[in-house]
């Protein structure tokens, strides 16, 4: 392992000497939810900007923000707003965090088309997923056991759903965990008594999306924040973005960047 690290260092030193020194470098760290967007965007961006070097790391929103406070990264990805204490710490270090909303994350709750239920409250969804309610008749449906389908516990969608819909409570142990948004959708489509959740971009006509707290999930309701299981995704910068950081943020906000956002299953801002 050490050998490869050394080899890597050696290789980058040689490459660094070969490429003229005007190559600009930025480091992005933080939320694993935002990670796929920034990773893909960085790849596309570097293809068209020779000399730009963008390093992208995960770690979680808290880790990214901590690094921004310490000044070791240029952009902190976050799936939540910075807390007051974090803002204060940044200011104490002589920096001013600037929130750049780059996308919206909206999660649809879906059921089989044969299901009579077409709307649930956020509380009912939480009760179903945590195991307090396990029959459809308790939430206005027919008398049948609810088949609870969830994403794998380490996926970003699971994390977002856990925070937004379940108040970080545990999903019932007998929930069927599926490895992708598509797998959840196809299982729900095949299983009459199932309930599942997928990113807004993955809802197809083969399943029925439920209204949550009386709000229909759509691009509009996610963008204006009325749909309850939605949240903005941030890229925090130190003050107004400048230089390569600005170019990169501008790229994400451009039509091409927002297309990447949609491709990764999130809701673009335009």
């Amino acid at each position: 392992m050490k050998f490869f690290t050394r080899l890597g260092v050696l290789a980058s030193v040689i490459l660094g000497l070969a490429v003229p020194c005007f190559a600009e470098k930025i480091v992005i760290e933080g939320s694993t939810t935002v990670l796929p967007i920034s990773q893909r965007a960085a790849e596309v961006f570097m293809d068209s900007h020779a000399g730009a070097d963008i390093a992208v790391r995960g770690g979680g929103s808290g880790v990214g923000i901590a690094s921004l406070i310490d000044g070791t990264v240029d952009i902190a990805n976050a799936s939540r707003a910075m807390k007051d204490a974090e803002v204060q710490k940044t200011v104490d270090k002589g920096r001013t965090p600037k929130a750049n909303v780059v996308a919206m994350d909206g999660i649809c709750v879906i059921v089989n088309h044969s299901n009579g239920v077409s709307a649930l409250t956020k509380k009912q969804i939480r009760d179903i997923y945590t195991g307090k309610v396990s029959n459809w008749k308790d939430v206005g449906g027919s008398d049948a056991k609810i088949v609870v389908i969830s994403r794998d516990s380490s996926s970003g969608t699971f994390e977002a759903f856990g925070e937004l819909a379940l108040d970080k409570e545990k999903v019932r142990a007998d929930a069927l965990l599926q490895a992708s948004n598509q797998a959840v959708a196809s299982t729900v489509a095949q299983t009459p008594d199932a309930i599942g959740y997928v990113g807004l971009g993955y809802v197809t006509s083969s399943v029925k999306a439920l209204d949550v707290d009386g709000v229909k999930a759509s691009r509009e309701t996610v963008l204006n924040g009325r749909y309850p299981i939605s949240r903005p995704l941030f890229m925090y910068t130190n003050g107004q973005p400048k230089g390569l950081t600005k170019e990169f943020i501008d790229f994400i906000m451009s039509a091409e960047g927002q297309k990447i956002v949609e491709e990764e299953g999130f809701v673009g801002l335009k």
Partner: protein
Amino acid sequence: MKERIYRIIFTVLAFSSLIFLIGIIAILFKEGLPIFKKVGFLSFLFGRAWYPTHSPPEFGILPLIAASAWVTAGAVLVCVPLGVGSALCLHELFSEKQRAVLKPVIEILASIPSVVYGFFGMMIVTPFLQNVFHLQTGLCALNASLVLGVMAVPTVCSLSEDALSFVPKSFREASYAVGADRWQTLTRVVLPAAGSGISTAVILGMSRAIGETMTVLMVAGGAAVIPHSFLEPVRPMTAAIAAEMGEAPMASDHYHALFAIAMVLFLITFFFNIVAEIVSRRFRIKLGLSG
């Protein structure tokens, strides 16, 4: 001189798999053991709750081990009759020509990628089970057992057929000579003689089933609870590793826990392989083939 160079080259090649094996074992243990600083070995092995990303996390893999055990046991129930049955048929009933056609056909089953089996399980077996057993979901241990069982047929069939063909002709001739009919010869002479060879085939089939990943990830359902019947969704060890490793932050507790599962899985298949080796050695001695 030339001969010596070749000798060195091939020795190095032969030992390379040993190096890979040692490397894999070393990494497994290096990355897996740190979790036991956080969770006791016994509470890891026998804990009933697997909530690796919740805070505080819970790392109990008994539901995962139980799931692997159920699914593998089910797969054995499927692959033994099919595999040994087809081996007997190939060996006892078919002519050389028929065997030459059918054996490769059975072996083609082994060359189908596991994701294709998984897809087949999701699209065909799942709705079938839902209708037959009136299940709420067909993604369950039985589904995984059926598909894995079929996947293990080529291994079991091919090795069983080899075992049958190792039984010396003289055994049969002696049996016929004392007036035994074909059925008696088969059940009292040939099968007992080939028995440990067939057991080896079954054990290797089991090891194939317990280690299979993609298929169980797709059809077993993925619920980390200790199953009480074949009709419940389960989350075998391999499925948990495959589904969670990609997203587990490196060097986190979750990451080490997944390596520790892999370690447990390795020890189980290692045990199977050792048993298979011992049994097959005894088989060869019994037939006087070699020491």
